[in-house]
């Protein structure tokens, strides 16, 4: 088992606390939300159509978080990039709302497929990110 996999909630040296923690989360969260908003603006969803923007944001965030959690914890990395950026780049609330909207627009099969794809592909992206980040780099011991 790779070291670091289970360190999600374990405090590490140099991790910001209190107000500094909240500042890190706010900054990362604002950045992640901006990217997701840009995707939503750039790839507008039409009624009954596959929500590409939300799926793209969710898969990208899963990939980055998977990699981040495979790297050593410490410093501002996890609050800023993990809880902040990845947490906000990905979204869950849009998923059931978009699924319900798809079903209401006469595409119930697409609604089920969209929800299932988001979770299955998201899990695959977390795994892929973790494997890429845990891979030994050329030149390192």
């Amino acid at each position, binding site marked *: 088992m790779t070291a670091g996999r289970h360190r999600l909630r374990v405090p590490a040296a140099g991790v910001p606390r209190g107000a500094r923690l909240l500042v890190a989360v706010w900054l990362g*969260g604002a950045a992640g939300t901006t990217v997701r908003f840009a995707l939503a603006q750039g790839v507008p969803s039409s009624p009954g159509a596959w929500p590409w923007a939300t799926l793209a944001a969710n898969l990208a965030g899963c990939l980055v978080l998977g990699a981040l959690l495979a790297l050593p914890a410490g410093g501002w990395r996890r609050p800023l990039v993990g809880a902040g950026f990845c947490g906000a780049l990905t979204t869950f609330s849009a998923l*059931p709302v978009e699924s319900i909207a798809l079903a209401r627009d006469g595409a119930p099969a697409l609604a089920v497929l969209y929800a299932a794809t988001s979770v299955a592909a998201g899990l695959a992206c977390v795994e892929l990110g973790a494997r890429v980040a845990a891979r030994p780099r050329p030149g390192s011991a």
Partner: protein
Amino acid sequence: MSGPLLWAAVAGAGGFGAIARVLVGGAIARRGGAPHLGTLGVNLLAALLAGAVAGAGVAGAGRWVVAVGLLGSFSTLSTALAETRALALAGRRGAAAGLVAATLVGGLAAAGLGWAVSARLPGALP
């Protein structure tokens, strides 16, 4: 509201949504004794509220700031799935499957409930 002001409002709301997720999720996790319960609670609450926003017919800047900015950032898929993977890696496959099922089924139920209730409130847009 449009242009740079809208972008700033969405980003700022997203920052506060992330802070609320850490605080509310952390509080639920401490009471429940497991990090994934905090994420699950936050996600179901966000789904309920996002369903209510959709059911009320909120559109334009209000939808961008509240649904996409605040609630979009308050909820998270990446943490939920990373916690699912951690449960599976720890040999708790049943808990991992249960977390996915509770998130998806609970999220659909919460969003549907929020949608149905707010669509019936006076003042909801058609």
